[in-house]
């Protein structure tokens, strides 16, 4: 009798614990109570917006403005600085049964991967009425986010035309001209640019002329139509003369001691804006806001922008809606609004992101804009001229990984003293491992 009572109690205890465990492990469905399919147009909705880097929407107040226009929509925004860290997180979210991302940022380097491999995991925006937006974007921008069977997977946010941002005070100290038109005339080729760098180095020992070797390499290559893939989708990274030319110029800059030996977006690079450890940066328009932030108030008026030797593009993104989002319609309303011409103009004025909408780019507020922080440089005109000359570039699915490998190899020459041939061979090996 004694044993049976103990056994019953033990079994009862296990049953209670088991039930508690199952109850504790089940999901709390309170947050999903708003998933009525258009049941009530003004029902409160929370949209999860996940971006990377510096889209600039929050800083420009656009999320708050949208909330004022649509009080029932709450935007839950978060951003991961490094796109390389963001993309695996996004991919994991795409495969969840109930998605937790409603608006996803897509970098231009990934858009080919999205349209070719992940098209089933994103909502076709045509089903939500996107075709009405097509005419307001640059055709090549729109086309890049369209699959071969006509599905539109992202609305373009900005483009990244590159100009050279430089420190006027450091240039003055080195005895170089500081007027942007004069510099633009002198920078006719990359060799001329490096020659000026040698002049700079002669006078200014510790400070580097160019921020990073990888930045220089990307700026040079960013002007080519074909980079790492050709039209048929075959990787050509090892045979493309444009790649070799960009590589060789960057190696020359390293060997002449003109580069800063850091990685872009690293802590040391960030500090370099304020401390003057480098004098020039190949700056896409979206980096303008970033430079302002890192160089701080002390830097105001010490910076200027001049067109560089080529017309190159870096970045520019899209906003897409994962297929497993619970609020596709509301998310589309948001991204449609964010990428409309008036908002792109606001974003340019506040954050420097250059519009991917040709309508917005033609707006006098953009074309005539001067940036006080950068010595009143006509950034609208400078970036607009570069954007107008941009080639329609071929983007491949693994562009990001290949670019990473070359950037890392250049850094290994700088910091580890590897020979250029060694570094090139290592880069090819890493690329083959990543995409082969």
């Amino acid at each position, binding site marked *: 009798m004694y*044993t049976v009572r*103990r*056994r019953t109690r*033990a*079994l009862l*205890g*296990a049953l209670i*614990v*088991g039930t508690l*465990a199952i109850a504790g492990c089940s999901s709390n469905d309170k947050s999903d109570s708003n998933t009525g399919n258009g049941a009530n147009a003004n029902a409160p909705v929370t949209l999860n917006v996940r971006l990377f880097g510096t889209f600039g929407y929050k800083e420009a107040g656009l999320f708050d403005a949208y909330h004022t226009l649509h009080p029932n929509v709450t935007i839950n925004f978060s951003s991961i600085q*490094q796109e*390389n860290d963001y993309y*695996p997180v996004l*991919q994991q979210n*795409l*495969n969840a049964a109930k998605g937790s991302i409603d608006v996803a940022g897509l970098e231009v380097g990934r858009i080919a*991967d999205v349209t070719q*491999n*992940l098209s089933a*995991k994103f909502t076709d925006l045509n089903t939500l009425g996107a075709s009405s937006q097509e005419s307001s974007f640059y055709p090549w921008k729109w086309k890049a986010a369209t699959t071969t069977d006509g599905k539109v997977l992202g609305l373009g946010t900005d483009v990244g035309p590159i100009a050279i941002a430089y420190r006027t005070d450091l240039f003055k100290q080195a005895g170089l001209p500081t007027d942007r038109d004069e510099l633009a005339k002198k920078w006719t080729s990359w060799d001329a640019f490096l020659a000026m760098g040698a002049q700079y180095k002669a006078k200014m020992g510790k400070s580097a002329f160019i921020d990073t070797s990888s930045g220089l390499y990307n700026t040079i290559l960013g002007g080519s139509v074909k980079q790492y893939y050709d039209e048929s989708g075959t990787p050509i990274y090892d045979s493309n003369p444009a790649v070799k030319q960009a590589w060789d110029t960057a190696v020359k800059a390293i060997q002449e001691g003109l580069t800063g030996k850091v*990685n*872009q*977006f*690293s*802590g*040391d690079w960030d*500090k370099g804006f304020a401390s003057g*450890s480098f004098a020039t940066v190949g700056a896409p328009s979206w980096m303008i806001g970033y430079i302002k932030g890192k160089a701080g108030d002390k830097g105001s008026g010490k910076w200027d922008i001049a067109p560089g030797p080529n017309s190159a593009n870096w970045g520019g993104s899209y906003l897409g809606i994962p297929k497993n989002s619970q609020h596709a319609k509301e998310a589309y309303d948001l991204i449609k609004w964010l990428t409309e011409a008036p908002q792109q103009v606001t974003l340019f004025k506040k954050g420097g992101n250059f519009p991917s909408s040709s309508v917005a780019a033609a707006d006098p507020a953009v074309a005539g804009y001067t940036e006080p922080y950068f010595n009143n440089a006509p950034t609208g005109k400078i970036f607009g001229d570069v954007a107008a000359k941009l080639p329609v570039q071929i983007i491949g699915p693994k562009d990001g*990984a290949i670019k990473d490998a070359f950037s*890392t*190899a250049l*850094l*290994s020459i700088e*910091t*580890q003293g*590897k020979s250029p041939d060694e570094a090139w061979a*290592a880069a090819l090996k*890493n690329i083959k*491992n*990543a*995409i082969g």
Partner: protein
Amino acid sequence: MVATEPDVRQSDLPAPAGTARRHGRPRRPGAGLTPYTFVLPFFVVFGAFGLFPLIYTAWVSLHKVDFGTPEKMTWVGFKNYSTLLHSEFFWNALRNTFTIGVISTVPQLLMALGLAHLLNYQVRGRTFFRVAMLMPYATSVAAATLVFTGLFGRDFGFINWLLGLVGFDHIDWQAGRWTSQIAISTIVTWRWTGYNALIYLAAMQSISTDLYESAAIDGASRWQQFRYVTIPALRPTILFTIIISTIGATQIFGEPLLFGGQVGHSGGVSRQYQTLGLLLYDEGWRNSKLGYAAAVAWTMFVIILIAVLVNATLARGRQRSRD
């Protein structure tokens, strides 16, 4: 008769009729089910979150799986493993894991032993020291690593600044193979020394003072007491910490990843500090090769098993030879 360690060879079979009962447990049929219901919750959770992922990872490692489309699995048999064993990146990662493991484990355990011995004395503020020693263990890996990365910075780091004060050149900690591995090992050592010291301390406190007194009477110095009384009594504890440290050292991931910043995932600009854990993340998450990453994961598992078995056999061998 003081038993210093449980006798693991004691049989658990019921005692033959007529002999004294071993543990005082009632040996009636039906009562044997009770203990199993108590441990069932743990095994259910282990089965779901431990055993199933282990087996599923092995299954994934036999396929080619892309990270973006994990539902599409293509059977490739053992191709992932053969590619792995022929890959110079794998052997590089294995070598790095071994060297970082040795640099971070050996000095750490020795220091922990010494610290525990010092704290065993009746010093003032003993409790404060014990708490302070454990605090590094309580910090988050990410926060600690980021702070140390700043300290080891090339241009603006505190350690380079100190070196500059005494006339040395700035060291690029991230660029060199040994400098980066020493830096990472420093972070690991900082975190785990206190933890292991407390484990040794707890074991030391169960050593009877009679042994020390008799050793002292026989004329043993402090060092000899340490060598011939403390360490032999600590043998099972030392074996335990070696096994745990080996497992941890094989899996080092967070520290090198955050140490390198943007190039952390590849273990530096030329993979100079890429460990097996980093290789797994790099191949699976950056290069989208989930099947290959699963193969790396199972290879790590097998390496840990072998290392633990070797550890345990060596320890048993020494013990048996001393008996």
